[in-house]
C-alpha cells in the first residue's frame, strides 16, 4: 500500500483541485444568497456586491407571504412550496405503491401474457413527456385534471424504473421463503405484505430519496397542467421570474430567494440521506 500512496505534494494538489471544484459548484449558491439580501433599489443603484446586504429578511418575508410584490404578479411562493411538497410526496408514494405490486406480479406469478404485460411497463421508458407533450395535455384536460393534484401527479407515476428495481430486489430474496410460506398455507397477498415488503424496505427507502427529488424537480408537466397561478409549483415559477428579472425589472432578489427555497429541500435530502441516495442511484443503474 505504502508504495502507491501519493506523496504529500500530490495529495495536497489533489485536495486543492477538489476544493476548487467544490468552490466553483457552491459559487452560484453563494451569489444567489447574497443577491437575495438586497432590495430592488440596491440592484438599480448597482450596490450589490459580494457580501450580504441588509434586506434579506424582508426579501424572504415578501416572497413567502406574497406581500409587497403584487406589482409583478408573483405567485405566492409559500403556497407554491406547499404545492411542491404535496406533489413530490404524492409522486413518490404513487410510484412506489403501483410498482411494488406490479413487480410482485411479474416475479412471483405464472400467468398468461406475463412477458407482454412486462414489456408494456418497459415502454414507458421510451416515452418521456416531451415525446407526447400535446396529446398528454389533451388527455389530462379531457379528464378535467387541470389545476389539481391528480393532474400534477397521476400521469407521472407509471414507473418502469421502480418496477425493475423492485423486481431485482425480489429476485434476490431466497426461494426457501416462498416455499415456507406456501407450506404454511399463506396466501400470496399475506406473503407479499408480511414478507416481501418488509424485506424490501432498504430498496423502498433508497428509492424514496431518488423519487422525491424527481418529483420536486418536475418542470414541464406542472407548467402545462396548471393554468392558475394558485396551482404553481416552486420550480415551475422560476422560468417566469427569471424572465422578468432578465427584462430589467429589479426582482433578482426575489428570483434568487425563490431559487434558493426551491433548491433547499432536495439538496437537504441528498446531503442528509447520502448513503441511501447513493444506494438508490447505483441500484437504479442496474
Amino acid at each position, binding site marked *: 500500500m505504502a508504495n502507491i500512496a501519493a506523496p504529500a505534494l500530490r495529495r495536497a494538489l489533489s485536495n486543492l483541485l477538489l476544493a476548487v471544484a467544490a468552490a466553483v459548484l*457552491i459559487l452560484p449558491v453563494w451569489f444567489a444568497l447574497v443577491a437575495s439580501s438586497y432590495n430592488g433599489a440596491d440592484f438599480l443603484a448597482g450596490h450589490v456586491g459580494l457580501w450580504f446586504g441588509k434586506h434579506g429578511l424582508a426579501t424572504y418575508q415578501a416572497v413567502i407571504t406574497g406581500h409587497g410584490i403584487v406589482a409583478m404578479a408573483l405567485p405566492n411562493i409559500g403556497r407554491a412550496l406547499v404545492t411542491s411538497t404535496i406533489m413530490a410526496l404524492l409522486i413518490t408514494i404513487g410510484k412506489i405503491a403501483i410498482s411494488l405490486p406490479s413487480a410482485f406480479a411479474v416475479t412471483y406469478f405464472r400467468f398468461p401474457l406475463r412477458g407482454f404485460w412486462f414489456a408494456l411497463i418497459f415502454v414507458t421508458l421510451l416515452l418521456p413527456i416531451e*415525446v407526447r407533450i*400535446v396529446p398528454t395535455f389533451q388527455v389530462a384536460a379531457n379528464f378535467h385534471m387541470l389545476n389539481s393534484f391528480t393532474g400534477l401527479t397521476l400521469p407521472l407515476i407509471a414507473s418502469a424504473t421502480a418496477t425493475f428495481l423492485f423486481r431485482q430486489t425480489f429476485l434476490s430474496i431466497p*426461494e426457501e421463503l*416462498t416455499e415456507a410460506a406456501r407450506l404454511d398455507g399463506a396466501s400470496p397477498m399475506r406473503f407479499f405484505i408480511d414478507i416481501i415488503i418488509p424485506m424490501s424496505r432498504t430498496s423502498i427507502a433508497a428509492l424514496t430519496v431518488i423519487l422525491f427529488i424527481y418529483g420536486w424537480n418536475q*418542470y414541464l408537466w406542472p407548467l402545462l397542467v396548471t393554468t392558475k397561478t394558485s396551482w404553481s409549483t416552486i420550480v415551475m415559477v422560476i422560468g417566469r421570474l427569471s424572465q422578468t428579472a432578465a427584462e430589467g425589472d429589479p426582482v433578482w432578489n426575489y428570483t434568487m430567494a425563490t431559487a434558493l427555497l426551491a433548491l433547499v429541500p432536495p439538496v437537504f435530502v441528498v446531503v442528509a440521506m447520502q448513503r441511501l441516495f447513493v444506494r438508490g442511484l447505483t441500484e437504479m443503474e442496474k
Partner: protein
Amino acid sequence: MIAKRVTFKRTGLPLALLAPQLAVTVVFFLWPTFVALKQSLYSSDAFGLREVFSGLANYRALLLHGNYPATLERSAFFAGSVTAISLVLGLVLAVMADSLGRSGRIWQALLVWPYALAPAVAGVLWAYMFDPAIGPITHALAFIGIDWNHVLNSGQAMTLIVMSAAMKQVAYNFLFYLAALQAIPKSLMEAAALDAAGPVRRLFSLIIPLIAPTTLFLLVVDLTYAFFDTFGLIDSTTYGGPGNSTTIMVYQVYKDGFIDQRFGPAAAQSMMLLLLVGALTMVQFTLVERRIDY
C-alpha cells in the same frame, strides 16, 4: 424472462396487481403516443378548418425545410458538449478523490449535492451570475476585457446553457466514477506502481480501460439528460434565444406544439424524439445485459 422458481399459479390476482401500473401506462403514455403518431400524419387544410391526412408531409417539411435540421445539429452539439465536459471533469475529480484514499470521502458530500438541483434552478443561478447588466461574473469578465452578453451573443448563450447543464451531470458522473475506481483491486494499482508507471500513464493504460463500462453507461445517461431533461434550464436562462441559437429539440417541440399550436409539425417532432430516446435506451440495455454477463 427470469422469474422465481417457486411461483404462484393464479391469473386474476397478478392482473389485478398489475392493473394500476398498466392503466396509467395506457392512458397517459400509450394512448397519447398513438395520438401523436396519428397527428404527425395529418395537416390542417388550406383554410385551417379541419385536419386532413397528409402522409409523411409533416416529416418531409420538418427535415427538408425550415429550421429543424439546424435544431438537430444544435441539440447534438449541446448534448455532446455537456456530455464531454461532464465525463472529463467527473473522471478527473473522481481520480483525485480516489487517490486520497479514505480521506477523499469527505469530498463526496461537497461535490455530489448539485445532483439534487432542478435544471431550471441551476439555469437561473447561472443566468444571474452572467446577467449582462448586473451579473457578478459579468462584471469580473469585463474587468479582464471580456464583454459578456448572452442575450445578444449566441455563442455565449450556448456556452451558458452548456455550463449550467454540466453542473448537475459532473456531480452524477463523479459519483459513479468514484464507485468504479474504488472497485478496482488495489493489487492491480500496486503492480502498476511497481512497474514504475507514473500517475498519468496509470490513468491512461490501466484506469480508463478498466472503467470503460462505467464510461459507456454514463455516456448514454449524460446524452439522455442533455437531450430530454434540460427544458427547464433553457426556459429559465435563454428562452431558446437569441434568435433560435439555444432552441434545442425539446424546446422547439414545446414552442411549436404548445405555444403556436402547430400540432402536425409538433407531432412529427415528437416522433423524432421517440426515435432518439428509443436508440439511447436500446444502447443502455445492451450495455446492461453485457454487464450482467461478466
